[in-house]
């Protein structure tokens, strides 16, 4: 029910069928009243005609003529009208209409039907000479029956229209939702990082197809821009490496006969600076290589347990020096299809991050587990974590959460991890451990 209310498609569909049903209802009411009024007038006309015909007898034959006309009409076979002539005392002196004497003019009266008991009727009473009165009445039953028939027909019509409307709304709503859902699913996958996805463009060239086509054009443009950005970044890194390395080698050559110790230290610092930049370039080129996605050719089975144990062993002393504890937790051994060194790089980056961003005394756990049938390696810490709204951002290149950029690091660590995960058809997820951060790499099921 909630989806019906939340869906604009359903809302539009329901609103239009409701408007349609309301229109039907209004037409029904109008027809009902028009028919009712027309029939009531017809009835009044009949009464008036009969009444005039009877009073016309008065001029020719006096009261006797009136009486005869009433009797004649009553015996003339089944007549929808009833007649009564009253004396001035109120006593009925002629006619079969069994009712107390009504006042003069048009009135709704109740008469006693010999078969059905008291019944409603429309009556016209006119005064006659000598205090006599003539009442001509028509049973309202026929009018009521016509009203009922019209009401029934329109009631059924309204229900049918309502049913068709609801069914139409459901079908239309479902159709709109299905078309929109396709676009939504694809857009979601693209927002999730799969830029290769495109909207399905149908053969009809309708509004949806045209929206899908323009979205695709927009995506092609975005992909082009991203590819261009990556190309520029990696070209820059590639082309600057050689001159930078040359500079570094010249500096190193100066070191040999260094005039004094201070001189030597300065040269070493400069060499270190150059090495930092070279490492940054290497990381950029490595990410580009990973994003090209041709590495899978060299993939083989990797035993995660061996890898995790090995890396943990190598990094325990680092953690200890930083006053932190690094431990291993293997919940389930797992083998995945991949590149041992790339996976090692990813885990090392995650450990380095954990070491860098946690206070002294923190505990860091590197481990293997299974989640939803997928093997996963994780690095969890008890540090301050990353705010939920920043977690997507930190994976992007060169993004560092501290704006001062005063601590070492170039902001490529997590993007490299993410690129390595993607090359393994795995996914990097950053989760809150309250307190702390858990970085998990989920591998696809089939690599088990």
């Amino acid at each position, binding site marked *: 029910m909630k989806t019906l209310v939340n869906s604009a498609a359903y809302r539009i569909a329901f609103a239009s069928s409701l408007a349609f049903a309301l229109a039907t209802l209004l037409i029904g009411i109008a027809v009902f009243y028009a028919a009712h009024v027309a029939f009531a007038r017809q009835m009044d006309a009949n009464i008036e005609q009969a009444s005039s015909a009877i009073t016309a007898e008065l001029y020719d034959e006096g009261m006797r003529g009136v009486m005869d006309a009433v009797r004649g009409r009553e015996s003339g076979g089944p007549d929808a009208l009833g007649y009564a002539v009253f004396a001035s005392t109120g006593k009925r002196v002629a006619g079969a209409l069994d009712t107390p004497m009504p006042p003069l003019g048009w009135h709704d009266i109740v008469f006693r039907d010999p078969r059905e008991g008291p019944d409603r009727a429309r009556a016209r009473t006119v005064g006659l000479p000598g205090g006599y009165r003539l009442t001509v009445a028509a049973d309202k039953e026929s009018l009521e029956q016509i009203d009922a028939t019209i009401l029934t027909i329109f009631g059924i019509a309204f229900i049918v229209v309502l049913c068709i409307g609801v069914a139409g709304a459901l079908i239309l709503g479902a159709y709109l939702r299905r078309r929109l859902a396709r676009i939504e699913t694809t857009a979601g996958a693209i927002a999730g990082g799969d830029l290769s996805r495109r909207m399905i463009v149908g053969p009809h060239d309708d509004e949806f197809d045209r929206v899908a086509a323009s979205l695709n054009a927009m995506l092609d443009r975005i992909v082009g821009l991203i590819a261009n950005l990556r190309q520029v970044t990696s070209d820059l890194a590639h082309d600057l*490496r*050689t001159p*930078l*390395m*040359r500079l*570094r*080698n010249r500096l*190193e*050559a100066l*070191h040999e006969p260094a005039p004094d110790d201070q001189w030597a230290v300065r040269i*070493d610092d400069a*060499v*270190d600076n150059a*090495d930092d930049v070279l*490492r940054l370039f*290497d*990381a950029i*080129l*490595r990410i580009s*290589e990973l994003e090209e996605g*041709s*590495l899978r*050719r*060299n993939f083989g089975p990797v035993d995660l347990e061996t890898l995790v144990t*090995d890396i943990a*062993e*190598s*990094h325990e*002393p*680092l953690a200890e*020096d930083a006053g932190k504890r690094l431990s291993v937790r293997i919940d389930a051994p797992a083998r995945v299809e991949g*590149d*041992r*060194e*790339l996976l*090692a*790089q990813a885990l*090392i*980056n995650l*450990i*380095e991050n954990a070491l860098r961003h946690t206070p002294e005394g923190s505990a860091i756990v590197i481990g293997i587990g299974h989640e939803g049938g997928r093997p996963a390696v994780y690095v969890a810490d008890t540090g301050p974590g990353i705010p939920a709204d920043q977690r997507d951002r930190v994976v992007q290149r060169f993004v560092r959460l501290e704006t001062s950029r005063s601590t070492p690091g170039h902001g490529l660590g997590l993007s490299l991890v993410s690129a390595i995960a993607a090359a393994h058809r795995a996914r990097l997820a950053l989760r809150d451990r309250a307190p702390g951060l858990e970085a998990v790499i989920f591998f696809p099921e089939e690599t088990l």
Partner: protein
Amino acid sequence: MRILIAEDDKETAGFVERGLGELGHNVVVARDGEDALHLGLTEQFDLLVLDRMMPGLDGLSVLKRLRTADITTPALMLTALGRIEDRVAGLDAGADDYLVKPFAFSELAARVHALGRRSAPQAVATRLNTPSLEMDLLAREVRRDGALVLLQPKEFRLLEELMRHAGEFVTRTMLLERVWDFHFDPQTKIVETHISRLRTKLNEGGLPDLIETERGVGYRIRAA
């Protein structure tokens, strides 16, 4: 050592020739693949430094032909392509080591020395010794001046690499490759930290330091 360098880029060739010459090596430079193949087949060298990408015959093909001709001289492949895929191809072609361009000269020098030693026929060593250190590779024991030193597996491997190249610098990158089997720079201080642990354990009791650190170059254990 007599070293053949096959490199078409004049600047790199010149810089390597000068550098290795200064270290006392006899360097012969070939400007292209054919030249290198001819020199390699006709003259005796202790080491080959081959650029992978050269006009005409490339470094990989030169090496394959030399290996087919039973020339087992150690070879170091220089490659402008630091890509993971290229590393695999280079080692498959029979290279003993490879170095990604651009490289630090100290890195090349250390690798040249390490490979040059390999050309001498080597018995499979089970013991490595320096005057104050004894290493038993089978029992996995290390003694300093006769006293047993307990090392973690990675520290043992680290010491083994330094001992195998006693007297020469072993670079951080070489240690990453040989001890951790990492052919990339993990950008972490694992080498530094493990060296520091190893040093503390070897020097326990205030003994003089045996591991020499040269900033930007690497580590060396004294041979004598």
